[in-house]
């Protein structure tokens, strides 16, 4: 996968990655490039059609310098709005939006639900670590009830968002949740998302050993034991997070639909219909 990473990025050499030791962001980058590689090899998607857009936060740093593709490190929460504009200019872009739970669920919440509602052709990879990592471990809209963070020193009194349910209700045709401990599933989901014309949300539970103050190994093991596949929901689900594909529908994508309007106005002569 190294061919897809610049040897020298604006922040220095590509390796070691800039992420903290044990962070899940590097894993997600790896999984994404595996999926992208398959699309380039199997679907013959042109490399210059890929576009990686991120907002601000640890997830934003995935696009900040390594990728040997067109990429954009934009505004906190606004990656999807920028992606929408890029698709208006050129619907052929295969856009991957890297985002975090704060980026998507909080400051960019409005852009998120409306991207899903419009069904624009993006694949959203939301790295959910349940906190704001880059600014030092503050609570996020995905932080579990009762958790202690740097801005909930007396425990978090707010319910956490379920971003997958939100996306599904808002209209995204493909919604899945995995963890960094499910590499093959993540790769397959990203491929599905990129192949689907429309909005795909793939939430990836991702560890933050620094702010969660636990070893990466413990956290990754927890991802295997504390999650349950949505198809096995008959088993005891108490205290477990659902993973799997929550929906996989075919819906009309925004640009495909709008093209019908544009094409009404194509003329071979210079007469305008009254």
């Amino acid at each position, binding site marked *: 996968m190294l061919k897809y990473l610049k040897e020298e990025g604006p922040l220095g050499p590509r390796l070691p990655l800039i992420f903290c030791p044990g962070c899940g962001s590097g894993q997600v980058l790896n999984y994404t490039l595996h999926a992208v590689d398959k699309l380039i090899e199997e679907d013959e998607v042109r490399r210059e059609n890929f576009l990686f857009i991120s907002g601000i936060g640890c997830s934003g740093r995935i696009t900040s310098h390594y990728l040997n593709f067109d990429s954009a490190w934009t505004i906190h929460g606004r990656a999807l709005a920028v992606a*929408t504009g890029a698709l208006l200019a050129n619907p*052929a872009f295969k856009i991957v939006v890297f985002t975090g739970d704060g980026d998507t669920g909080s400051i960019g919440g409005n852009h998120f639900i409306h991207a899903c509602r419009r069904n624009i052709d993006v694949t959203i990879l939301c790295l959910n670590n349940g906190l704001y990592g880059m600014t030092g471990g503050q609570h996020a809209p995905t932080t579990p009830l009762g958790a202690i963070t740097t801005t909930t020193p007396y425990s978090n009194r707010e319910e956490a968002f379920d971003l997958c349910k939100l996306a599904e209700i808002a209209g995204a045709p493909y919604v899945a949740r995995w963890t960094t401990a499910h590499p093959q599933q993540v790769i397959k989901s990203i491929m599905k998302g990129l192949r689907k014309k429309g909005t795909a949300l793939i939430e990836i539970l991702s560890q933050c050993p620094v702010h969660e103050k636990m070893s990466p190994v413990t956290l990754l093991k927890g991802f295997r034991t504390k999650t349950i596949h949505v198809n096995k929901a008959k088993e005891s689900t108490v205290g477990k997070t659902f993973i799997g594909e929550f929906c996989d529908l075919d819906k009309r*994508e925004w640009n495909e639909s709008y093209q019908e309007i544009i094409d009404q106005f194509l003329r*071979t002569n210079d007469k305008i219909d009254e």
Partner: protein
Amino acid sequence: MAKKIGAHDGENRTHDSYFLKPGRYYLQGNQACIEGALMAGCRVYAGYPITPAVETMEYASQRFPQVGGRFIQMEDEIASACALIGSSWGGVKALTATSGPGFSLMQETISIAVMSETPMVIIDIQRAGPGQGYITASQQDVMQARWGHHGGGPIIALAPSSVQEMFDLTIEAFNLSEQWRTPVLVMVEETVGHMREPLVIPPRDAIEVIERKKPQDLGIPPQDYLPWGHGVVAPMANWGDGYNVNFVALVHLEDGNIARYSPQANYHCVERLQNKIEGNVDEISRIETKFLEGCKHLIICYGAVSRTAMEAVIEAHEGNGLELGYIRLVTLWPFPEEKMRKIVGNVDTIFVPEMNLGMMRHPITEALRDRCKKVVSIPSFGILHSPEYILSRIQEETS
């Protein structure tokens, strides 16, 4: 299949017949700017409804698909401005229009666009007052245009005064944004936005349209491309061009390197951006003058006010024998200080009629304080000054 904007339709069909034919039209200012944008090659409009800019958006929704463009109503003004960044880097010129509260929401993105050197055009149909204010006319965002976005990055802002100029200056705004790789603001009063008067559309091939410089056109291959280098205005590789560009709005050096964070690198980057616009103020900024020679007093104005001010000036010359010179700022920012100092001799009083409590009088005073005895602001709130009112205020001060 959704197509790239401007892509050929395999059947030899085009959207050309939907451009306005040369001739006289009767349009609203809020619509004339859309026709200007289409002539300038703008093919993406992303906006959010707000009074008194809403006719612009409604008209755009009708016109953009007719000429092969795309219109989208975004979820808010923040998203609208962000969509312009995405479209511009995707290679297509983009426009939005808004008013006060929406303009405030766009400021974050304007700052990002200044730093990332993104060509795009925002039209502000100004309403009056802080807060929700009042939906009638004002010139109350002219300082926000310059200083409203964080970090103080330089900006280009134009002030049209007629329906014709809503067309002409929107084209100029796109040309300036492409030439200097920067967001350009068109600061309009509701007066001009809702004004209906004749508009002359020239033949399409008679309109000068400037396109951004691209590295591939200059023979710069991807391996030699410096995203912020190669001259005062860096050539812009768009997404999809195969240059693997990294859009970044952090402090950066010519080679795109953000590693060498330092006060020097920061200063170098900000200074370069500043010099790009402020250093070329004479080329970018335009003023119009009349009756300057030997005038005893001077009136300096912009936008809609320049029309009633001109009436007042003519009346002063014809009826009152008052030697009153006239300067109109076509460009508000960068402020053409040196240009004005070159043509303004010593006068008694400088009058600045504005539809606010006196905003542009500050840079005007700064530029010309040694050329006059005093600068007098003539404010008006929520409504355009009448020529009689301007003249009466001048007579009060000079008698």
